[in-house]
């Protein structure tokens, strides 16, 4: 029995349930002070002055920071981090000053009373398809062409027997991890020690070193336990810069845990999108044309170009294919990564349009997808390292009871409920990035493995221990896995579904190397090896198209009187390479699917354009799905899949794919239940019945 594939319990579970696991602001720091930001009350303007004397006279106040007195920071690419370096206000809620005080209460109160004199200027925050200033970015994230085109879309559409031309919209949504962005910063001589909640301490340490002009070995960022991130903690955020700056100014450790309301301004969110999809097909449903044009927003602080239409490039074959991205540069907070950036909104549009095409063709939506399954990656022409989408659809159909489904909409009723079912495909790139790791023998037959991986609640620590155990040929409880500290061997962040794939490669390599060296004899001082996978990753054969696939099935019930939509069943079936730990993997899938349910039905950040901010900035106003919404009939399965071309262990990564097809599956099910096609997320009750 290998450790990989076993249901190993989370090694830090007891620490978490007993409170022994420390999060960023729970570390003791003698003499700690607190910083609290002052946010811009306008969406565009220039800071004239801050009445610092009045604030400094308030009880417990140690310092007031703003651009007139803040320490200078060195240039970094992400200008959201350049706190108080300019007098320019770029969006409502931007940090324009901060108060450091002896207590959190004093800091908050003084910050609330801090008067910032701002010369307000007219702002523009509205994303619309008819804006004259939409522009094509040079690249979309992470490094894709903005626009692609093959063949003549217009000609193929004109020659198609069936065509669909529809526009979908998705709302701005905020990541909202349970643990807010939080930091404790302290300067120990010329060293900076930060406990910070993030998805990658290596990158955060590098950013801090650059900003504060320090050698990288002078900065230590510890992120031992992290209460979720969903992309919003992928890189350093303003909170950690503010804590470090404040600590330097007052010469004491400084803590900051952002509020829930702060989550809606300064840490990132998923851009709203407007997406036009055009599909043309023969009467047999075989696609002739696919066009996907996405419009989204970015800020004036830095460009963030969500890769919304990129997933469409490799999903289905067609003679003519076109994708395009356009951005509006607005006076808004900078959008950022949120679980499956690109694929989550993009596949919602594509997979909804495919459902509309199936209806137009009179074809079962699964059959339509099967007929359009490409032999090779239609974009690159490369073979897929593995592509088991059809197998996922077939397996899911059997589990879900899809065969024999009546395709007619609005005809199934259970009491007051209209019932419908929907399906959608999912995909996410399977990428690996370089990582380093160290492994060494301990005295008692145990081993320690170091890697700066981050466990953001996924079980990464446990999973990597399983990988090391198999490589060393020992039980997982012989492995001491050390993660979440920038002084450990550097590795890629927990993001892009790349973590386990990249980290396991380095851990496996280090452990194998240690085992080999041990076989040759153990020297007196013990044995430690350190490896790096940069060369291995660079040597990956570029002529494979590497992606994970999945199929989502939803059954919804729509109240015939009120339009309320409830999801009675949600199923995901995945082909994601090798699954290291079925327990933690299932948890990831269900979490992603739940987040997709929220994107489909409830999550929406509402901007009031007169003020330029998101007004529903708490959990009473921003509805994330909770247990009663998910119910018990949610389940995830995966197929056995061996893919030796993605990385040595055949791991594709599972953090994002769970969210990808769920909004479309639910939207398609709502149509099947009611005959109403809601094309703008979230699918609120008023959109279903009352417009």
């Amino acid at each position: 029995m290998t450790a990989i594939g076993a249901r190993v319990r989370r090694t830090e579970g007891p620490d978490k349930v007993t409170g022994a696991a420390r999060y960023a602001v729970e570390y003791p720091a003698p003499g700690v002070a607190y910083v609290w930001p002052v946010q811009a009350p306008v969406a565009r303007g220039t800071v004239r002055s801050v009445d610092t004397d009045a604030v400094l006279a308030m009880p417990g106040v140690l310092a007031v920071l703003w651009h007139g007195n803040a320490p200078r920071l060195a240039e970094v690419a992400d200008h959201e981090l350049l706190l108080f370096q300019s007098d320019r206000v770029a969006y409502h809620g931007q940090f324009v000053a901060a108060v450091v005080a002896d207590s959190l209460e004093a800091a908050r109160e003084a910050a609330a009373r801090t008067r910032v004199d701002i010369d307000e200027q007219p702002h523009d925050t509205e994303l619309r398809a008819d804006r004259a200033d939409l522009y094509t970015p040079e690249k979309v994230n992470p490094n894709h062409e903005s626009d692609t085109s093959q063949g003549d879309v217009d000609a193929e559409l004109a020659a198609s027997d069936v065509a669909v031309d529809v526009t979908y919209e998705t709302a701005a949504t905020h990541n909202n991890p349970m643990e807010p962005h939080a930091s404790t910063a302290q300067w120990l001589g010329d060293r900076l020690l930060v406990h910070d909640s993030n998805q990658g301490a290596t990158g955060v340490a590098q950013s801090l070193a650059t900003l504060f002009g320090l050698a990288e070995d002078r900065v230590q960022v510890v992120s031992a336990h992290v209460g979720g991130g969903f992309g919003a903690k992928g890189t350093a955020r303003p909170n950690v810069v503010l804590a470090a700056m404040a600590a330097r100014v007052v010469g004491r450790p400084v803590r900051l845990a952002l509020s829930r309301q702060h989550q809606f301004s300064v840490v990132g969110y998923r851009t709203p999108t407007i997406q036009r999809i055009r599909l043309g097909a023969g009467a047999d449903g075989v696609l002739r044309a696919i066009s996907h044009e996405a419009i989204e927003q970015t800020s004036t602080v830095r460009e963030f170009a969500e890769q919304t239409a990129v997933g469409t490039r490799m999903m289905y074959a067609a003679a003519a294919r076109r994708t395009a991205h356009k951005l509006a540069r607005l006076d808004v907070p900078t959008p950022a990564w949120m679980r499956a950036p690109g694929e989550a909104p993009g596949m919602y549009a594509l997979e909804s349009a495919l459902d509309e095409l199936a209806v137009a063709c009179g074809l079962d939506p699964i059959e339509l997808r099967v007929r359009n399954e490409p032999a090779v990656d239609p974009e690159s022409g490369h073979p897929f390292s593995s592509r088991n989408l059809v197998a996922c659809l077939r397996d899911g159909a059997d589990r879900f009871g899809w065969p024999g489904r009546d395709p007619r909409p609005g005809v199934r009723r259970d009491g007051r409920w209209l019932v419908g079912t929907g399906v959608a495909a999912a995909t996410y790139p399977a990428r690996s990035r370089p990582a380093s790791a160290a492994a060494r023998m301990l005295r008692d037959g145990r081993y320690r493995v170091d890697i700066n991986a981050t466990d953001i609640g996924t079980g990464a620590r446990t999973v990597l221990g399983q990988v090391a155990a198999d490589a060393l040929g020992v039980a997982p409880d012989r492995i001491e896995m050390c993660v979440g500290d920038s002084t450990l061997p550097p590795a890629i962040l927990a993001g892009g579904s790349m973590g386990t794939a990249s980290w396991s490669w380095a851990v496996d390599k280090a452990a194998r190397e240690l085992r080999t060296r041990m076989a040759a004899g153990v020297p007196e001082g013990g044995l430690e090896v350190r490896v790096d996978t940069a060369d291995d990753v660079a040597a990956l054969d570029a002529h494979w198209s590497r992606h994970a696939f999945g199929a989502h099935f939803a059954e919804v019930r729509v109240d015939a009187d009120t339009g309320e939509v409830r999801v009675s069943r949600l199923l995901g079936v995945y082909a994601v390479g090798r699954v290291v730990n079925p327990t933690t993997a299932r948890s990831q899938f269900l979490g992603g699917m739940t987040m997709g349910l929220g994107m489909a039905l409830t999550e929406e950040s509402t901007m009031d354009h007169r003020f330029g901010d998101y007004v529903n900035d708490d959990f009473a106003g921003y509805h994330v799905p909770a247990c009663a919404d998910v119910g018990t009939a949610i389940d995830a399965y995966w197929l056995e899949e061996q893919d030796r071309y993605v990385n040595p262990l055949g791991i594709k990564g599972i953090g994002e794919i769970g969210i990808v097809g769920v909004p479309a599956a639910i939207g398609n099910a709502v149509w099947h239940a009611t005959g109403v096609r809601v094309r703008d997320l979230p699918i609120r009750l008023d959109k279903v019945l009352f417009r």
Partner: protein
Amino acid sequence: MRPFDYARATDPAGAVALVGRPDAKYLAGGTNLVDLMKLGVETPALLVDVARLLPTGIEESADGLRIGAGARNSDVAVDRRVRAHYPVLSQALLAGASGQLRNAATIGGNLLQRTRCRYFQDVTKPCNKRAPGTGCPAIAGAHRDLGILGTSEHCVATHPSDLAVALAALDAQVHLHEAAPVPLTGLYALPGDTPQVETVLPPGALITAVSLPPLGFPSRYRKVRDRASYAFAVASVAAALDVVDGTVRDVRIAWGGVAPRPWRAYQAERELRGGPATEAAFRAAADAELAAARPLPENAFKVPLVRNLTAAVLGELAGVDR
């Protein structure tokens, strides 16, 4: 957080005396007041804790049920007598908030909670209720969740309580320390041009109990919400219906989520009494009440929603086949 004083009274008279100074507030469960203090919306100089002095019992008599103002929402919701005789009340309580909040919230405090209008809760924005005379940004802004009945050009906020909607339908009386009781339906003031005035209670009034006259016919509460978990009502209905031989003998209807107070639909009740218990009649009655609605662009859907919901709930109570 703004510094404030805290005092614990030992009896109602002591509490009333303590709260007599300006900027003093009673504190019971604190589930709304403390949140608003964190947001800077409420800035009391003194909190007078009444949680331990308010009666918490539920007493049954020939006059009906009397519920102490300090009773916890969760305790009242599961009380055997409440569930047997006033299911609408139990259902309304269980539809509100979350388990944790229901364990902390009190019956008296629940009636006096403040609106969930986003602008009211954000001190950086204008709001006639929070800062009289500054304007109402909701009317041209995010008002999808706000009111369609009883609103004014100065305020379109809704009262957020589920409990109060059930109590309005039940003709509940609100008992005060050393003052005459007030009918629940008369407790709340409509906004007019003074939206900061939310109740008819004089300063320092202390709610001690809520009483319910007997109700001899079936009742129920249904809440329409944007998610199944903890969420405020998009709209709700509390209804009780007495049908004899297909004719409506008595009926009570109150709506939540649509007005600055729990909206007792007296006009709809008048339309129905003595008439047929049919879906068409239920719809027509709801429309008669909704004729007074003044919906805004984003919440106009609440008019057909409330009509549908009312007809559905009355239909269920009447056993009408649909």
